[in-house]
């Protein structure tokens, strides 16, 4: 009986889960290219209300309005750049999930590489130090051995 109950529950939840994806309204476009453009844009634009979501993921009212705006602009044959410019003019660079490359964002873009370079330099320095230390210990080990052999020879005489 238990198994039957759980499988029914499971199937029920599975059926209901479809509802969860129904949050995003469907926009109709004339062709697949427009559909693709729409998808790309709402993936790249940030929802300003829930800042770590893009327009495609967010269910906030503003996100719905902005999705509609994007769809309207695509239908009226606005180019991708025009739509991006429209959003940036109103909400600033923050609306872009991929920040533009400019003086203010230089550190943001190049920072990781800077850290990588520093890390590699530190690594190289450490390896060199380690090798030098090994050389010294090897050398002193050899000396010790030589001394032992010499002592042995002395003793034999």
């Amino acid at each position: 009986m238990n198994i039957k109950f759980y499988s029914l529950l499971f199937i029920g939840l599975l059926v209901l889960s479809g509802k969860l994806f129904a949050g995003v309204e469907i926009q109709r476009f004339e062709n697949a290219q427009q559909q693709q453009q729409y998808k790309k844009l709402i993936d790249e634009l940030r929802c300003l209300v829930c800042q770590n979501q893009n327009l495609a993921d967010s269910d906030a009212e503003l996100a719905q309005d902005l999705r509609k705006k994007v769809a309207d602009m695509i239908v009226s044959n606005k180019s991708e750049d025009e739509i991006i410019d429209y959003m940036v003019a109103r909400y600033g660079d923050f609306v872009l999930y991929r920040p533009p490359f400019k003086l203010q964002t230089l550190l943001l873009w190049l920072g990781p590489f800077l850290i990588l370079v520093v890390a590699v330099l530190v690594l190289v320095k450490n390896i060199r130090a380690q090798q030098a230390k090994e050389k010294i210990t090897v050398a002193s080990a050899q000396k010790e051995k030589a001394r032992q052999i010499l002592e042995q020879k002395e003793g034999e005489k």
Partner: protein
Amino acid sequence: MNRFALPLGIFTLLVVLLAIGLSLDPREVPSPFIGKPTPVFSLPALYQPDQQFSPQQLEGKVWLFNVWASWCVSCRQEHPLLMQLSKQNLVPIYGLNYKDESNDAKQWLQQWGNPYQLSAHDLTGSVGIDWGVYGVPETFVVDKAGVVRHKHIGPVTVDALENELLPLVKKLQAEG
């Protein structure tokens, strides 16, 4: 001693950076409108739907543009302060009633008081988008030439009013 200097230095730097990070408010997105002319629009007034309001009508005046809605919880929070400000007659407050039913909005104003000279009724939210509104309430300061000079995001607090908004208003009013 020297052995600890580097890790300690890195740790201190990290603490300082994290402290700065904590003190920043990520919700305060800098508005691209600061220093630019107000976005153009024409909307019906809430109480006189046949009368159109547009920011150009206010040229020559310093004014506050407060975005509000009856469904907005934090608008209630700043409302007494706006009421007080409107009684002081320091600066005219104009409202943008954002994505609100006109009846709900009127009822809200009746219940809590109306600090606005006039509220423009933006039912669809399209003017809100043009002004880059993303978190109601928001308050813009517009100068005599019709240039947006400041944007306050979220409810106006006593601190923000006395230290940011009013000093700026006074400065702008003194400008030619």
